Every structure is written in structure tokens, then in C-alpha cells.
């Protein structure tokens, strides 16, 4: 293939890492929710989309991207809290598939609501000033915003890791993921924990939405393809594992980037093949715990 230089390959890898960052953020949210609540959140893509819209809307009001980065996860997380409290909590103790089905229907509701509020077409959103342009990273020019994205993801992952490993709340989450019964024995109100975890998970989804907004068209349907990809990453990494989400997210991002270079038509199906392969060889995912399923 003509023009295939080392620079191009490395640039492609960096592109893959940037792509993977969005996957990582989405997978973390999904993984958290599944790890703690054993719920497959089929509305995760919709929360992502709502986050993007909320971000664009708030940016229009405040003109300050950084404030939006704080407000959006809080806003979307609050929606998540309401959803968990009133729609999902009644389903505990029932069929394990029920929350999956409910969130599936909920996704449609979110998408249509956004269509009603903001129209069918999507709204324009350019990279915020200060993060525009491209920088020379040694192997070529690379968009500044994508570097920011990689950085922001790294910071978030680190923060989350510290939160889970070093704080008391994090300890409760880890215990609850391993054995919810223990929490009840220790007198902790499990339903409150689950409520908060769902809120955090969806809040992160919303954050990934606004972070992704400058990269692609902000449309009501933007969450649909993303959902499938996020599932792939979560499953490959292992449901309920933070390290798994990060590793798988980056892996999938790089796989997509490299496939796009050599066999572009296969780029989309490559991730599903990867998912099928991992599930058949190691059903719990790379870092998941065996037995953490139905």
C-alpha cells in the first residue's frame, strides 16, 4: 500500500487511542451499573445523547465549556437518579431481564423527547475556542481537541479509580459488587447505594456525550450506533471491571483505527467479531469475574 509510513501508523494508533477514549467513558458507566446492579442499561446511548444536547444547550447559555463539563454530568446523573428510583427500583426481585427491557423502551422515549424539544435535524456544535486547531505531535498534525479528550479521559479514570480504591464509598461499591448480601448484613441501605451508582454511571454517560459533541453531529440518533459499540467494549473488558473497561476501550479503539487503515469495509464488523471471539473463549470478558451473570 502506497504511502504507508511509520509516521502514518503511529498517527493512526494515536487516533485509535482518541477514539477509544470515548468508548472507555461509555464502558465505565455501563460496567459500573452492571457490576453493582446487574442491570444492562439499554438506555445508555440515550443518556449519552442527552448529555450532548444538554452540553450544547448550556454552552449556548454560558459560553463556558468548562462549566458545562461540570454541569452536564450532574444534570444527566440527576435524570438517572429519577429513573432508578421510580422506574427501575420496582423491578428488583423480578425477572432479571426486566430492567434491560425497560431501559430499552426508555431509550425510545428519550430520543423522541429530544426530537420534540430540539427538532429532528440536530444542532451544530463546533469545538470550543481554545481547543481548536491541530498540533504537531512528532509524527504529524493531530487535532488539539482529541488530545484534550485523551487527557480528560485519563484524568477521569484516575479520579474514579482513586474514588473506588481509596474512599469509604468506593469500598462499599467494591463490597457490593462482590456480594450484595454482605452490605445488608452490615446494615447499609443497599437501595441508596444502587441509586447513587446508577446516577454516577449515567452521569459519566452524559459527560462522554458532551465530550464527544465537538467530534460528531449532535443529533437525536447519535446514541444508537454508540450503544452497540459500548456494549462490545463492556463485554470484552468484563462487566463490572474498571480496568476491563479501560483496556477494552483502548483496544477496540485501536482495532477500529487499524482496520480502517487496511480494510475499511471491515471496520464496523471487526468489533463484533472481536466480541464474539472473546465471549466464546473467555465468556466473562478479559477482566470480568466468572459467575457474575444470570
Amino acid at each position, binding site marked *: 500500500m502506497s504511502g504507508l509510513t511509520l509516521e*502514518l501508523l503511529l498517527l493512526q494508533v494515536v487516533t485509535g487511542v482518541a477514539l477509544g477514549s470515548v468508548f472507555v467513558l461509555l464502558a465505565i458507566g455501563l460496567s459500573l451499573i452492571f457490576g453493582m446492579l446487574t442491570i444492562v442499561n439499554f438506555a445508555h446511548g440515550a443518556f449519552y445523547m442527552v448529555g450532548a444536547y444538554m452540553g450544547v444547550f448550556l454552552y449556548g447559555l454560558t459560553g463556558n465549556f468548562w462549566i458545562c463539563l461540570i454541569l452536564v454530568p450532574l444534570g444527566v446523573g440527576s435524570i438517572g437518579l429519577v429513573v432508578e428510583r421510580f422506574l427501575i427500583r420496582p423491578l428488583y426481585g423480578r425477572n432479571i431481564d426486566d430492567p434491560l427491557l425497560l431501559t430499552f423502551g426508555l431509550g425510545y422515549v428519550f430520543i423522541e423527547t429530544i426530537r420534540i424539544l430540539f427538532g429532528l435535524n440536530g444542532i451544530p456544535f463546533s469545538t470550543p475556542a481554545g481547543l481548536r486547531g491541530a498540533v504537531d505531535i512528532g509524527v504529524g*498534525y493531530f*487535532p488539539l481537541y482529541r488530545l484534550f479528550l485523551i487527557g480528560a479521559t485519563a484524568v477521569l479514570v484516575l479520579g474514579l479509580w482513586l474514588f473506588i480504591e481509596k474512599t469509604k464509598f468506593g469500598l462499599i461499591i467494591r463490597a457490593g459488587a462482590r456480594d450484595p448480601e454482605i452490605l445488608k448484613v452490615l446494615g447499609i441501605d443497599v437501595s441508596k447505594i444502587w441509586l447513587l451508582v446508577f446516577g454516577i454511571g449515567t452521569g459519566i454517560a452524559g459527560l462522554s456525550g458532551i465530550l464527544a459533541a465537538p467530534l*460528531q*453531529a449532535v443529533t437525536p440518533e447519535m446514541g444508537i450506533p454508540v450503544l452497540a459499540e459500548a456494549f462490545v467494549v463492556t463485554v470484552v473488558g468484563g462487566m463490572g471491571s474498571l480496568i476491563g473497561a479501560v483496556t477494552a476501550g483502548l483496544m477496540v479503539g485501536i482495532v477500529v483505527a487499524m482496520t480502517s487503515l487496511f480494510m475499511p469495509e471491515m*471496520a464496523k464488523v471487526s468489533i463484533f467479531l472481536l466480541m464474539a471471539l472473546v465471549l466464546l473463549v473467555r465468556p466473562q470478558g478479559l477482566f470480568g469475574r466468572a459467575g457474575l451473570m444470570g
Partner: protein
Amino acid sequence: MTSTRISKRRGGISRREVLAAGAGGIALAGFTPSLFSIAKAQTGVIKIGFPVPLTGPFGAEANDQVKAAEIAIKEFNEAGGFQGRLAELLVRDDKLNPGEAATRTLELIEKDKVNYVVGSLSAAVQLSINNVTKERGVIFNSISQSDAINEVKDWSKFTFHEALNPHMTAGAVGRYAFSKFGKKVAYLTADYAYGHEMVRGFESAGKPLGVQTLADIRHPIGASDYSAFLPRIQSLRPDVLCICNFGRDQVNAVKQATEFGLKEKIKIVAPVLLYTARVAGGPEIFEGVVGGTSYYWRLEDTVPTAKAFNDKFRAAHGGAVPSDYGALGYAGVRSVLTAVKNAGTTDTDKVVAAMRALKYDFYKGPQYYRDCDHQSVQSVLVIESKSKDMKDKNDVFSIVGIENPDEKNLRSCADLGHKA
């Protein structure tokens, strides 16, 4: 013997019952009287079925098509209709889904007994509608882009194509861009039929100009992230980058190409620039992008029928201007109704003949349907997106070139499989 009795008790039904039901069913089917006949009404209201994707990503275009089509109907009725018979538009939502479109078309033909069908947006949907209408001998005038519908495999004498096809728009844009901006070309193409048709259109326009294709990079349709393809495009150093996709894909691709800094050294062109996509993407993202279209409202500056149409649309819709696809809704319906008047009857075969003979100028200049494939031969506009000097919020493009109607710009009849 015992087994039959046991099966009865277990909730099954015996073989005898099944055979009886089957025979009864066939008898019923065979002797069903013609509760249904494909013959459409020869008196009464002239019904035009209009399946368009009212819900989904192209809802805005579809609603525009409905608005414009209704203007054509109103014009027809206010002029007295045809021998006192008025026209009626039966709008249905096909949800941009070919299966749904087929169901709706069956509904329109079998239940509503429409005389003709106009509509569709998206290649797959129009092919699906066409498949149903041609089997039942109903005229279908398609108002969205596709090369495939003119090909002999899908085409029928009842099939008409009011809209442009990718070959025409890509060709016009190619002829403009390659002579102006350079001969080294790269393509970023959506990997589906429409995408490939666009590339073919560009390449056939480029060949006589000595254009060199550096690469044709395919991406999966519906991709939201094109960053994986852009470094390679950058390394190829083309003069022109043709982004051959549509709608959301196009907005995403252009947005990300801009962000990667491609615009500094490369001219970005697209075969089709949608008015609504440009508005949704915003002026910054599309700045400087050149593309093709069937219609842009500023054509009223030079073409009187455009002004007449725009004024009617503005009057009916509070100053709004029609979009490119919207205008096709107007022309598609008006062609059929005009042909009915010319033929002096609603009989399908005679209306087909009248449409073939039709020479018209409804909103953009002279048009007529080519004999071999009923493709409407019409002008193609080359437009450039602008962000400065915008007279108002609707003024998003400049018309930088107009290619006059010419059969040479279409794919040849032989190419499409039609015998000469």
C-alpha cells in the same frame, strides 16, 4: 389409533382437521370474488399517494416535500382541476424503512385506490416502492436520488424519476472542481450503492480532464467517527477530497475533516449538499465546501419560475423558503397532474404517454423525461457554502455554476441496460 386419541387430549388437532382447514382455505382463496380490482377510479377525486419519511433523520426534508406537494395540488384544484375532478394528496409515513414503505404502498393501492404514487426519500425506499407499483401497473414518480432506479433491472414503463441521480450531481461538481482546484483526487466514500454511484459519477467526469484518483477510501455507512481515515488522506496530499456520503454522515465527515485541518491544503467537495444538513452543521463547519444540488432558492435571481414557486411557498408558509428536496415534491406532483390534463384522461397508459411527451418548466428551468428510462433531464446547480455575506439566515450558499440540461451528463441508455 391410540396415538390420534392421545394427541387430541394433549391439545393438538388431528390430521383430518388440518386437511379440512387447508382445503377450505384454498377454496376460499380460489373463489374469492374480485373484492379487489386494480382498476382505479375513472371518476371522482384524483388520488396521489405520497409516502415519505415523516419520522426519522430526514423528517425535515420529508415535511418540506409534503408542503411543496400540497402547493402543487392546490394550484391544480384552484385552476378547476381536471374536468371538474379535484386532486387529493394522501400522505403516508414510510419511516425511511423499505419494508414499511412497501406496506404503505400496498395500503395506498389496495385500500385507498390511489391513481398514482409520488414520493420517497432514500434509494432503498424508492426501489421498494417501485417494486410494488410496477407489479400493479401504477405510475410512480420518484423524488429522491438514485442511479439504480433507472437501470433496466428495476425500471418499468410506469417508473419516472423526477429527481437527479448521483451521476449527474457528482459529474457537475467534478467538472467544476477538477478544472479549478487540481487533478489529484481522493475519495472518502460511504460503503454502499449510493456512495459507489457518486464515485463513479466523479470519475467519469474526471477522466476527460486527466484526473488522477489517489485513493478511494471506504467507510461503513452510519459511521460517526471518521478520524481513523483522515491521517491517511492527509498523507496522500490530494488537491481535492470528494466526500461521497449523505446527510448525517456528511456532516460528521466534514466536521472532522475541518477539525483535522484538512481544509488548509485540500478543497473539499461533495456530490450533494443538502440545505438542511448545512443549516444543522452550521456555517463554520461547511465553510468553503462545494457541492451539487437540484435546487437552491436563490435561483429566483435568474429564473422567473423559481421566483413564482418561491413566492407561493413563502405565502403559504410564513416567509420560509423551499429546500432542495422540498421543491422536488412540488415538481413530482405537478408533472403527474399536468400529464393527466394533457392526456385528457386518468387512464394510466395514456398518462404515461403524456408524461413522456411532457416538456415543462415548473420551478427551475426547462425539463423533460428521457425516453429510455424516464429520467428527468434538468439543470444541476453547483453551490458553495458560505459563512460571510449572508443576506439572511436562509442565504447559506452561493451558486457558483449551473450545468444546463444535457443528456450527455446522464449515464447512457446502453450503460443502464436499456436496448436502444
